[in-house]
């Protein structure tokens, strides 16, 4: 029972991070109708930045703030300068640009900070003894911290979407960009803010997950997370923030239980398992569990 609970805790912690990464993907998809393959690598870059700031003596929370701010800037600038001019051309063009960004940001992080693994400080107490027992299982403080931050972040995003003018305008642009413009919404600025918001959320996902990750901070840290987050976003429905959160948690818990209990897959094929989920969803329920928009199909 205690082992099951610990696996469950692990799953929820990872799932929480997948959830906010998926949220970043959903925010971008709702604003510009593309999946930003580079979201993970942009977050990787800002996470390296946060790590670097801690090496020059700043506390990690300051690094996290800087990562969030840089993530916002990167997202907004990328939308304005690279995505907007080609968005109307075709899917392929935005995908290629995203792949270019993917490669460039990963290599840039490696170029600036080399490819050695960095131990990433945690925002929370992360010692071996920093846990409290729950029904015989250990719940570590840093896991609980991640849960709380993710919860706050999700609440913040939902507040933004549902209770503010800006959020209403974002939803309006996602729903019917032309009518939004005709209502006086500055659609360009809204799209840019959407990408910026996704940049913040993605960056925070990076800063939160790397201290918990077995690989710590290395050039390959974020890619698997992007894969799981894509699976989560598709699972919940690419245009549904609620779906992203539910999908992220579901994938995290499933991953932890499958690697724990299913021997054939155990440990060596976890990404493949997530990818099988992606393919099955695309084939049989392309709108996901909570999605509403008709996805492109023929």
């Amino acid at each position, binding site marked *: 029972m205690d082992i099951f609970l610990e696996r469950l805790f692990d799953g929820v912690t990872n799932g929480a991070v997948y959830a906010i990464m998926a949220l970043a993907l959903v925010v971008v998809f709702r604003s510009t109708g593309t999946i930003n393959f580079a979201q993970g690598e942009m977050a990787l870059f800002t996470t390296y930045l946060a790590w670097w700031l801690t090496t020059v003596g700043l506390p990690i929370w300051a690094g996290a703030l800087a990562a969030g701010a840089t993530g916002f800037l990167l997202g907004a600038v990328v939308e304005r300068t690279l995505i907007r001019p080609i968005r109307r051309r075709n899917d392929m063009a935005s995908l290629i640009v995203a792949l270019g960004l993917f490669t460039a940001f990963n290599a840039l992080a490696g170029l600036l900070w080399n490819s050695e693994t960095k131990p990433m400080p945690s925002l929370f107490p992360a010692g071996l003894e920093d846990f409290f027992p729950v029904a015989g299982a250990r719940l570590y403080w840093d896991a609980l911290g991640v849960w709380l931050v993710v919860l706050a972040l999700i609440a913040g995003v939902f507040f933004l979407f549902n209770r503010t*003018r800006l959020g209403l305008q974002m939803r309006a642009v996602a729903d*019917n960009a032309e009518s939004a413009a005709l*209502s006086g*919404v500055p659609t360009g600025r809204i799209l840019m803010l959407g990408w910026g918001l996704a940049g913040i959320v993605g960056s925070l996902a990076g800063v939160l997950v790397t201290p918990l990750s077995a690989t710590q901070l290395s050039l390959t840290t974020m890619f698997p997370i992007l894969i799981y987050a894509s699976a989560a976003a598709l699972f919940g429905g690419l245009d549904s923030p609620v779906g992203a959160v539910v999908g992220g948690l579901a994938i995290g818990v499933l991953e932890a239980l499958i690697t724990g209990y299913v021997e054939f897959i155990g440990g060596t094929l976890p990404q493949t398992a997530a990818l099988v989920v992606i393919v099955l969803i695309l084939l049989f329920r392309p709108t996901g569990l909570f999605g509403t928009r008709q996805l492109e199909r023929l």
Partner: protein
Amino acid sequence: MTLLSVQNLTAGYGQARVLHGVDLTIEEGEAVVVLGANGAGKTTTMRALAGLIGFGGRVEFEGSPLAGLRPDAVVARGVSLVPQGRGTFPHLTVLENLHVGAALRRDKRGIKEDIERWCGVFPVLAERTGQAAGTLSGGEQQMLAVARALMSRPRLLLCDEPSLGLAPKIVAELFGILATINREQGVSLLLVEQNAELALALAGRVYLLEVGRVIASGTAAEFREDETVRRAYLGY
């Protein structure tokens, strides 16, 4: 006073030019209708005026040019378009739709008053403020689209074929409301229509568009008398 003056308006899509020099004016408080067959350039005219597509020629609203303005800037100047077909946000509630319509306004109280006013004018909306717009009927959505456009407090309302796809009874109701808005709220109206009979009943003046040019204009009364117009557009 002249509210909108359009001289030699040209516009099109890519290589294909649709408007070859349209001239028209709207006086303050007027209701004007543009008639014409499919492909005459009615919708293109509206989209150009609203800033959705680029155009050539001179377009002045209240004496200053509209050229080069993005749609949201055009709205800020006081021109609001109800586009053809889907002019609402289907996944947002009726109330949210109306709030988006007030995107440029900061006066919370005024916005609230306007929402109450338009819900009074369009009672079907008042009953469904919490409902997603996509679940409304075609006629209700069209009314919502008009109300949404009015939320920006335009001085000039552009309506692109509001009667399209609606039942005759609903169309009559909608046109009645448009006439009231024009008369009582002082909102000038530029209407594009295929339904000439209703449009002539509503409008004071008429422009007839053919292949991207204005080929005739006059008062609604003159048009009703005109034999050729009657035969071509009214069918009797």
